[in-house]
């Protein structure tokens, strides 16, 4: 009797732990909140010499949602599967560069002498940013397959750079270090560590009710 009770308790605990680790969220707002909460380890931030650097891990579900439901409330299963396939081989981060809390400047213009330097910086940020970014996984350096600066038309002092890596290049179940070797703002080599457990604990986004 005592033993069966222990087995049942153990089984219940296992089920509870399993359900906790495999949690699912159906509300996109709550999902975004989860991703943005620094306690969940998916946003890392540091400041050097007045420059704030924030790196955010973007799970595939987040991108699939943005892509699939940007313009429509619901979507056909086949189209949804195609979109999901498009993102299945990538691992994405967003690097946000801007002034820290004590400063107010436009990151694309800070510490520049003239228009030529501004043009050079914009070109580097738009087209050559991949040269400054890599991942370190299990001692292996991985280069991005795509970097893209999001255009904000000067509405914000910060700039977002979307960085995409090939998922197959990244060793699964390992801590990931996002490395930004800065050559523009004198902040040096900056590393942002993402814990494998935090990545594994990301809840899945439940699309069920929006797919026809």
């Amino acid at each position, binding site marked *: 009797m005592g033993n069966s009770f222990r087995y049942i308790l153990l089984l219940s605990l296992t089920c509870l732990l399993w359900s906790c680790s495999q949690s699912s969220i159906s509300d996109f707002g709550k999902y975004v909140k989860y991703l943005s909460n620094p306690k969940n380890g998916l946003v*890392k931030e*540091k*400041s*050097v*010499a007045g420059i704030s650097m924030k790196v955010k891990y973007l799970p595939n579900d987040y991108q699939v949602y943005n892509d699939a439901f940007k313009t429509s409330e619901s979507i056909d299963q086949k189209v949804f599967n195609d979109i999901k396939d498009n993102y299945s081989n990538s691992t994405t981060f967003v690097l946000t560069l801007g002034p820290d809390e004590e400063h107010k400047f436009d990151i694309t213009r800070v510490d520049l002498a003239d228009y030529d330097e501004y043009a050079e910086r914009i070109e580097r940020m738009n087209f050559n940013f991949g040269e400054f970014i890599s991942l370190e996984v299990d001692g292996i350096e991985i280069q991005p397959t795509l970097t893209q600066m999001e255009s904000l038309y000067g509405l914000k002092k910060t700039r977002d750079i979307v960085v995409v890596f090939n998922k197959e290049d990244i060793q699964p179940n390992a801590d990931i*270090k*996002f490395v930004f*070797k*800065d*050559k523009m703002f*004198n*902040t*040096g*080599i*900056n*590393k*942002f*560590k993402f814990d494998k457990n935090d990545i594994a604990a990301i809840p899945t986004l439940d699309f069920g009710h929006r797919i026809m």
Partner: protein
Amino acid sequence: MKDLYGKIAFVLSLAIAVFLLVDKLQLTGNSDKVGVVQMEKLVYDYQGMKDATEEYTAKMNAWQGQSDSLESMLQRIYTEMKMDSIEGDLQKLRKDQERFVLIQQQYYQYQENVQKKAKEEDEQMTSGIINQLNECIKKYAKQNGYSMIIANTQMENVSYVEDAQDLTDEILDFANSQYNGE
């Protein structure tokens, strides 16, 4: 009535005494905490400096390799020119001389560019490291309640510091963990 005034006066004076005591404790606590950091050791033992130096050296070696190949090309043409003179082949000698001057110009230009680029890279690397360490010292001071951390430089601007006030190892550990993104 007199008793009530007496009680109020007692409570008020007690409150003022506690306030003054807390204020005094705060003054003698956090704000007097001063430490010293040995900048030279901090900079050279900092992992960010080691990584940046490794990268800088690799880049320098690649540039040097390019410079070496131009130099050996010049050496080869010079040998050919010597052979041309021995053999009396004036036409080839003239052609080789032209080639030599052209490559020599490229070589000097390349050397000049490399020196300029190396200086830029070095300055960028140093300022990046110094900025990162300054940020770490500031953060360490705030987290550990220091009102001042004095940086002792190569000029030995701090001639004596007790071991307890030397924060170099602690700040180095802190800076390295920050550098590693932890």
